[in-house]
């Protein structure tokens, strides 16, 4: 249904194609296993961030349990692979399913609640999951974590001894699959209906959109990809530790979603790459541990100041430089102006005013 500017759309398709090929070629140029590791981690975060945007951005559910879904994926995969000896490939799927199941449980209270109360319940839920993980320490290793999770394998190929080449392609594959599925979802009727619900709940119900059911589906779907990513994360790192539930993890991934732009799938993906590499790039500077985080925080604020809708809104703007820009809905109000008015604005205004004066 989306009615895009044809040109804009073409250049977008092009760009995506180029990026995909670049993604496939990266390992050929990047031999360094550290860089490959960063790509892998940012792909995982990209999946988590993009799928979070399905519930947060598209459906407008203030879902703070998303990182807990990731954790559920991590532990479900880790436990089934390690304790039940299930093949890690299958265990990754189990991670996705388990995360979806967790999402369905959260959805029961969440669909009845309004706005920010959702924050509370989802937050409480993630704390509960963490408590559960920590106090079942016989199974999960508690705060110490669970080590020696078996990793994935293919006949005749050892993932551990190939400088992360195999992991890289698995991560990329997951990323592409997730992106394709998420894009398909948000452009489907279902995607339309959850955006409608977000825009105006009462009106949506009056047009026959079942609010609880759609929200449940949105949560379950977004949790599935996240759980899958969690599953991959644990078989890749071979350790599950409760830090995945940390507030710092939540704020890291949330920043990817918002810097990337809500209501966008690509935005959070690129933000994940961008933030991971920036922050790691700064990590190699000596005696700069705090400064590194301060710089990233500053960068985030600057991005939001110039692109309050996230980086995703910057991309089409650049692509469609010549095309007539669609105008933003924000009126230039008296309050925002002082803060945002540039000097040229003021000059123009003064000039125009003097014109009318002589008339």
């Amino acid at each position: 249904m989306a009615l895009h500017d044809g040109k804009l759309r073409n250049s977008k398709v092009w760009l995506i194609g180029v990026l995909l090929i670049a993604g496939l070629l990266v390992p050929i140029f990047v031999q360094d296993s550290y860089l490959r590791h960063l790509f892998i981690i940012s792909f995982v975060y990209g999946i988590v961030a993009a799928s979070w945007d399905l519930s947060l951005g598209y459906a407008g559910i203030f879902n703070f349990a998303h990182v807990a879904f990731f954790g559920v994926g991590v532990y479900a995969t880790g436990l089934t692979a390690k304790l039940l000896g299930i093949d890690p490939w299958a265990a990754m799927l189990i991670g996705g399913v388990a995360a979806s199941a967790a999402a369905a449980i959260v959805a029961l209270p969440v669909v009845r609640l309004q706005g920010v109360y959702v924050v509370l319940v989802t937050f409480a839920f993630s704390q509960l999951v963490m408590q559960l993980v920590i106090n079942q320490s016989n199974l999960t290793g508690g705060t110490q974590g669970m080590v020696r999770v078996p990793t994935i394998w293919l006949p005749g190929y050892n993932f551990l001894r190939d400088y992360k080449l195999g992991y890289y392609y698995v991560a990329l594959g997951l990323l592409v699959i997730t992106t394709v599925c998420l894009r398909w979802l948000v452009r489907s009727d279902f995607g339309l209906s959850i955006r409608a619900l977000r825009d105006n709940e009462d009106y949506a119900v009056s047009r026959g959109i079942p609010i609880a059911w759609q929200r449940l589906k949105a949560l379950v779907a977004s949790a599935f990809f996240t759980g899958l990513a969690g599953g991959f994360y644990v078989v890749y790192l071979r350790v599950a530790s409760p830090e995945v539930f940390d507030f710092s993890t939540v704020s890291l991934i949330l920043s990817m979603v918002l810097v990337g732009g809500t209501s966008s799938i690509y935005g959070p993906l690129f933000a994940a790459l961008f933030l991971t590499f920036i922050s790691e790039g700064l990590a190699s500077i000596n005696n700069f541990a705090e400064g590194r985080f301060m710089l990233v925080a500053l960068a985030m604020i600057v991005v939001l100041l110039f692109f309050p809708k996230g980086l995703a809104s910057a991309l089409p703007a650049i692509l469609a430089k010549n095309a007539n820009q669609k105008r933003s809905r924000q009126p230039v109000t008296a309050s925002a102006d002082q803060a945002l008015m540039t000097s040229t604005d003021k000059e123009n205004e003064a000039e125009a005013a003097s014109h009318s004066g002589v008339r």
Partner: protein
Amino acid sequence: MITSDILSAILVSGIVLGSGYALMASGLSLVWTTLGIFNFAHGVLMTLGAYIAWTVSDAAGLNFGLGLAIAVSAAIMIGAGILIERVIVRPFYDHRDILLVTVMTTLAAMIFMQKGIQLIWGARLKQLAPIATGNVQIWQTTISAQEALIIVVAPLLLGALWLFLDRSRTGRGIRAVGQNPDAARLIGIDVSRLFIITFALSAVLAGLTGVLLGSIRLLTPEFGSEPLVKALIIVIFGGLGSLGGTVVAAYLMGLLEAALVFFVGIYWAPSMIFLLLILVLLIRPQGLLGKVVR
């Protein structure tokens, strides 16, 4: 079996906890219930206030006493509040997703300030000298005078805050601005001034909370993160747009926590509290004291 000793311990520690929670939540609740902005930097403002007071009162060579320390801290906090409002809130006044965007910018500010504090003051533990020393007996339980002070100060501060918001012109104006800035402008309210006042006030509350808590806890750059999470839960649980709800929720949580610690053990208490939260919200989807409006 519950002896009066135990009951006293539960009640007193519940009230101590509750007063602490109420303090933590007050400033956050101020910007949230009035302007509808969730200030994630609130916790780190507490940290900042406490560190500044520490620098003035305890650091070598600057031993001027705590009164001055609090005054200096409050003054700097006003500046910090104004800065936060100017730099990371004001540009988004009219943004459609102001709630989400400011969640992000205040989160970034939180990281920025927290690491900045670590850079300036280092990561090692510090403690503020308590304002009041000695112990105080309440019923059958003895607590430190500092905690007794908090028990007294918290309701006073909150009462004053409530009176301010409910009765004073500026206070009502702040609420109006949060609900509809354009309409507020049209009845002669200086919207940006009130935004600034709100943030400055909330930052001062955060600073004061930091100073009070800083003398019963140890200071680290992460000092404010746990209070932030507590405050967040309490503010939402208390109900939207309701400062009274925040206060009730704070004391209720404190007492509940103390009781749960006794009956189910300190280990399960947090999980139980979260479960209860979810249950209460299932029965009252509009929060504890939020009004049913549909």
